């Protein structure tokens, strides 16, 4: 037992030496995650800061002017032109020069005063559904605010304005808040899976893996000797991203650090298990690299990072269940943003334990039995 432990320590020491010896490779473990975190944090945001639009005001009333003032007063909407007919505005949208056309109906003020639903049409560029959807949402909510305020002023009752797409959207809510904590899992998964898979593949290519198998190491010892250093690297990277989230993006941390790290450790074990499993399939570094990419992309898409898993077809929802990143994102978001407790995350933690408990033994078995 002690001998086995010492052998594992020998492997860990060797692995860390190989990873950390070269200053360049040392830097490549910390700088890219931080850069990726900054880039994702700034780039991957669904918030719009500027929406070019054209106005088709068929009413030309005080009310319509007040609405336009409210719209443009938000600072988001920049008018690129004013027309009286929708057909006149259409070419601008077609050319992609504006995102949205706001059409104020000819009886806007009258309907508003009469308490009847006043028609305002928000036409968006469906070719870029995501962005225009958001722009449409912004427009709708501003118009609704306007209508509500107007209603309160005049004391009129009933439905005021007939736009209601995504009225729930809150322009104050920053996507960054939900995005950056999710990156803790996403980026460390990319890095540790690659690191693990490549380190085994490199040893295979250089023949040192045979040397390990011939030495008195058992496959399990080799597996642990590969997993622990990757785990150390992963935890370091996760901490670096956490620091960026806390002190650069200033996103307040609501939960317990201990719970977060417990979740991260389990998640890394599962991700490294996958990396080891992939490395046992690959014969050389090139194959290991390709396998990693083949798996990483679906892992990211099926994790709830960019789109909620609940909206996916049932078959894909099952796939999200074997994806360690799904649980990691749920855990980090819940702990970081909502202050979730260990107990409520128990099912997610257990799922990660199960994934690690399946992939790691398979990898260890494959080390020895892989036929060339």
């Amino acid at each position: 037992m002690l001998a086995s432990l010492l052998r594992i320590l020998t492997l860990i020491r060797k692995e860390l030496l190989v990873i950390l010896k070269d200053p360049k490779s040392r830097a490549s473990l910390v700088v890219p995650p931080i850069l990726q975190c900054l880039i994702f944090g700034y780039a991957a945001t669904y918030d719009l800061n500027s929406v070019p639009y054209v106005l088709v005001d068929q009413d030309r009333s005080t009310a319509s002017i007040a609405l336009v003032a409210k719209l443009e007063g938000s600072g988001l909407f920049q008018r690129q032109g004013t027309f009286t007919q929708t057909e006149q505005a259409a070419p601008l949208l077609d050319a992609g020069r504006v995102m949205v056309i706001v059409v104020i109906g000819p009886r806007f003020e009258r309907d508003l005063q009469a308490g009847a639903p006043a028609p305002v049409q928000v036409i968006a560029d469906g070719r870029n559904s995501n962005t225009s959807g958001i722009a449409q949402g912004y427009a709708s909510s501003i118009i609704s605010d306007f209508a509500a305020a107007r209603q309160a002023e005049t004391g009129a009752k009933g439905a005021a304005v007939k736009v209601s797409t995504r009225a729930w959207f809150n322009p104050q809510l920053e996507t960054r808040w939900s995005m950056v904590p999710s990156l803790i899992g996403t980026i460390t998964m990319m890095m540790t899976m690659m690191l693990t898979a490549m380190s085994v593949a490199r040893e295979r290519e250089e023949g040192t893996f045979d040397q390990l198998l011939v030495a008195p190491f058992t496959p399990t010892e080799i597996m642990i000797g590969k997993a622990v250093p990757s785990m150390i690297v992963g935890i370091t990277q996760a901490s670096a991203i956490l620091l960026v989230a806390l002190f650069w993006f200033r996103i307040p941390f609501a939960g317990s650090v201990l719970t977060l790290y417990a979740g991260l450790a389990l998640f890394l074990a599962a991700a490294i298990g996958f990396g080891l499993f992939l490395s046992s399939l690959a014969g050389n570094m090139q194959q290991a690299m390709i396998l990693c990419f083949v798996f990483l992309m679906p892992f990211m898409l099926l994790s709830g990072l960019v789109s909620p898993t609940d909206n996916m077809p049932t078959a894909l929802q099952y796939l999200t269940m074997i994806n360690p990143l799904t649980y990691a994102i749920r855990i980090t978001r819940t702990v970081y943003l909502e202050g979730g407790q260990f107990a409520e995350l128990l099912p997610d933690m257990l799922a990660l334990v199960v994934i690690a408990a399946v992939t790691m033994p398979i990898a260890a078995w494959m080390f020895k039995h892989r036929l060339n």
Partner: protein
Amino acid sequence: MEDRPLTLVARDLRKTFRRDTGEAVEALAGISLEVRKGALTALVGPDGAGKTTLLRLASGLVAPDSGSLEVVGLDVSAEPQAVQDRIGYMPQRFGLYEDLSVQENLDLYADLHGVTGARRAEIYPRLFEMTQLGRFKQRPAGKLSGGMKQKLGLACTLVRAPELLLLDEPTVGVDPLSRRELWEIVFKLIREDGLSVLVATSYLDEAERCAHAVLMHAGKILAEGPPAEITAKAEGCCFLVKGPQGLPARSLQARLFALPGIVDAVPEAGRVRVVRQPGQLDTALEIAGLSLDTEPVEPRFEDAFMMLFDSVAEERARVSHGTIVAGGSGPHGETVVEVHDLVRMFGDFTAVDHVSFSVRRGEVYGLLGPNGAGKSTTFRMLCGLLPATGGTLKVAGADLLRAGAKARARLGYVAQKFSLYGQLTVDENLEFFASAYGLRGSGKKDRIRALKNDFALENLSDLPSGQLPGGFKQRLALAAALLHEPDILFLDEATSGADPIARRQFWGRITALSEQGVTVIVTTHFMDEAEYCDRIIILDAGKNLAEGTPLEIRQQAAMSDETAPSMEEAFIAIVERERLKRTEKAA
């Protein structure tokens, strides 16, 4: 020869490299050289003599620090591209695209060199005919044997018909049959096309066949001239020595090699071939009080080579040998490796076909065979790296694939590529392997120090092993495999690419180990190394063709012919005879 025009003229070439540790290495220290057209010129010398650097300078890939170099009538420094357009350079590891087929590789190099239409139609059939690769046009280059890869590399180099061909150790890792075929191609080109060839090689029998040999040492030229002229320098100094009954030739060799006044000693057909310093010929040869029978023989190029190097070499790394132990080990000891009816299939291809042999404690056992004969597969099965399809194998009483860590701790393994952690230093590598085998504390420190001393690695402690010169990589790999004092040592082509001097040191160590009772199993492409073995087995296409002592194998090959062939000739004769039988049977 002497009146032929020159194709390469070097004047006082100098080149210094800097290692990562900041240490400067003088690769060329003032080389002046003339290479004549339409002939074969060979560069020979130990690792680090500057052979590769000289070839790289000639091909315009590296610029000299000082001196002038003219190749095919052009100044290389001024017009490297113009020179490259007219020469062919085949580096040690030729850049074949492993996933592309033979034909695609050839097409690619033809495209790169702008060889088109008519010229291709003219040269392709000839290249395929010479290399005999025509049958394998569609095979991916990665799936070719070592010998075929080199032939394809040569074909790719020849696609644009160069005026001067530069070859850097073209036959490293190539079996004797493919080696002979490769040289047939080169000689044919010299004869028929008047091609000029400059080759760097560690095989001295290859240098013996050239028109002009250049012996290099530490970046300088030690001697040059026609091989016969160089060989003549050892005239009268060469002898065959017969040892006392029962003493393995390698044990006698190791002791003779350590004697003062002895330039070289190699085992040959159960006896030892000795080269003595010219001034020391009068004294009788004796070991442990026994005077030995000597018989003068004609010198070979190798004898003269060793004589010339002896005069400049620093203190020869002496391996200490204990007193001669009679019995107890060698062919009389207990059986430690037993292979019975071993079979290994890959799909429907039989890599190892019912092979049986056994090895006793303290024996040195050689596995010989052409590339793809099944040697490495047998080796991997013995080491427990590959399961057998059929048959049984026992190493130290256990099947290593299933045996626990304890059984594996008894063996040492040096893989073909000297598998070390290239980023880690010499010390770190040794530390790792020592700890892997459970060495700790002061015991570990002492063992590492002793081995570093033995293998002359002390001054290289902090150099990453990936930057070690070839010969030192091999030493480090062997040192790493010996840290835990294994009972059984597996060496897979451990001398591939090593120079003649390094190989003698290596075998001196193996001899010392076998005398301590270590069982050694080796594979090698150097047939002269088979002479160090107690017994050898020759495999081809997975089958056992012959087994016995080196002398028995030679006799078996000689048949009615009276002259005892060299080990290499015996090997080729046996393999070809069996191949002929097989094709006759098939027909």
